[in-house]
């Protein structure tokens, strides 16, 4: 049975289950129509664009400044999220306390809340007249329309990725290693750093990667608090949007291509890492 060059490998069961051709056909045609063909069209636009022009656009001073803002803020936010993600995952898997299920459910709020709503809420909250912003204003710290604000929005959007990456690994982690460490006289802190941390490190890094990737691409929750000041608080998705509004499609597409390539690299890293995590969570401890 052949569908678009994908051949069914010889199976022990000789394929009694029906529907391979139909399912493969529907899957591949929908995937091509919705994702692959539109993505490939990016290159069609760039074919009239010389390599020199392309390079000029993506290495323009203002564009490079946006990479710095996006990468820097996303990195800081992901690092903060790993810290609190480990803490929250630990608290949620190891302790019993009132309201635990509500706390667990709330973690996913950033996935459920429309990003634009989060964006205007955070901006107002952290502006110099907002509940939190006015407190910091007195200390001379501005949050909205600075990189601090961008970072806070990225922390908001990234936290569920880290918690949900670490939680299953902690749940599977066999308590007997910790008991053994305790019996051998290790302190609780030492047990955590020597026994537990190495086990959850790959999962934490996966969570870091996912939160980092999402933060770089994120638009809705970041755009309002960023304020779009060139060289200072302009993020990469926003400069693409600006170029689109000026109908400068080749420039917008060129910067978009940089983002696509970058997110593929991050995605590849995550795939390699999560293969290791699956080994730990699946077969390693307990069962």
């Amino acid at each position: 049975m052949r569908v678009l060059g994908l051949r069914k490998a010889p199976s022990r069961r000789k394929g009694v289950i029906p529907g391979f051709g139909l399912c493969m056909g529907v899957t591949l045609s929908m995937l091509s129509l919705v994702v692959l063909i539109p993505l490939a069209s990016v290159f069609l636009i760039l074919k009239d664009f010389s390599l020199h022009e392309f390079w000029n656009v993506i290495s323009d001073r203002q564009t490079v400044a946006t990479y710095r803002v996006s990468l820097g803020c996303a990195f800081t936010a992901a690092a903060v999220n790993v810290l609190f993600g480990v803490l929250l995952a630990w608290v949620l898997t190891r302790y019993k306390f009132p309201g635990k299920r509500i706390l667990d459910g709330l973690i996913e709020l950033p996935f459920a809340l429309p990003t634009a709503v989060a964006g205007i809420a955070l901006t107002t909250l952290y502006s110099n007249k907002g509940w939190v912003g006015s407190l910091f204003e007195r200390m001379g710290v501005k949050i909205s329309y600075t990189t601090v604000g961008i970072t806070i929005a990225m922390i908001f959007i990234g936290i569920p990725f880290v918690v949900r990456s670490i939680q299953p690994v902690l749940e599977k982690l066999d308590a007997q290693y910790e008991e053994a460490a305790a019996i051998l006289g290790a302190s609780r802190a030492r047990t955590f750093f020597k026994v537990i941390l190495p086990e959850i490190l790959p999962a934490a890094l996966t969570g870091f990667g996912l939160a980092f990737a999402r933060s770089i691409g994120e638009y809705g929750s970041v755009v309002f608090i960023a304020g779009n000041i060139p060289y200072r608080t302009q993020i990469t998705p926003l400069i693409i949007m600006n170029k689109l509004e000026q109908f400068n499609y080749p420039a917008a597409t060129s910067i978009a291509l940089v983002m696509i390539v970058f997110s593929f690299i991050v995605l590849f890293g995550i795939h390699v890492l999560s293969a290791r995590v699956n080994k730990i969570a699946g077969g390693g401890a307990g069962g």
Partner: protein
Amino acid sequence: MKGKITRWVLVGLGVLFIALMLLLPLAAVLVYALRQGWATFLSAVTDTYAIKALQLTLLAAGITLAINTVFGLFAAWAITKFRFRGKQALTTLIDIPFSISPIVAGLVFIVVFGRIGWAYPLLEAWNIKIVFAVPGIVLATIFVTFPFVSRELIPLMQASGSDEETAAALMGARGLRIFRRVTLPHIKWGLLYGVILCTARALGEFGAVSVVSGHLRGKTNTLPLHVEILYSEFRLTAAFSVASVLVVIAVLILILRNIVEHKLKREERL
């Protein structure tokens, strides 16, 4: 004793983080929405443009949900019930929209259907508008939520294996019957879970839709875009009033999601 203190400090820190980072923005939306009383709130929410935006949001989410559920079921069946070369590559390709910025997702449709796109002459000949029109909004929403259903189904169907389906097929059951009687009971909670995640994202999508919408009020404005317009016009109370409708939907989705996840976990344990 020392363990107990550590424990409460850690729980306290976790609760504080969630309260400050997640709950405070939520509370802010509701407080700002009702700051000028119920009358102002109601007039913003029942405004003609707000209602039209809500209708478009629901329409786009509905079409997206139907298409992505069909795709998710077919893709999961193809990937988990058969062995073929390039399976890993296919799974990775399906996951692409997850890792792409919503702005770039919107841009790819401009590049295909916009004035500079290769499909533009064709559309013009047939007098169809996609970009800066409703079809573009629907397409962009489908793109960003494309893997949501299949991603939930694939691990679930992989774990349950294909022995039961093989047995049913050997006994002479046809494809649809096998799916309905054998596979569906196993995956129903997982399917519902994927559908809920897809709905949440489809209702709230902003970046991708913003690129292809053209912001025509009453025509190509979704609810999140309407919030943005009100906010940029400094009509803050109106913006937060409309946003609070989305907050209520989000909280309902969150509760539903947790109930379904609970059922799913219980089923996995059995």
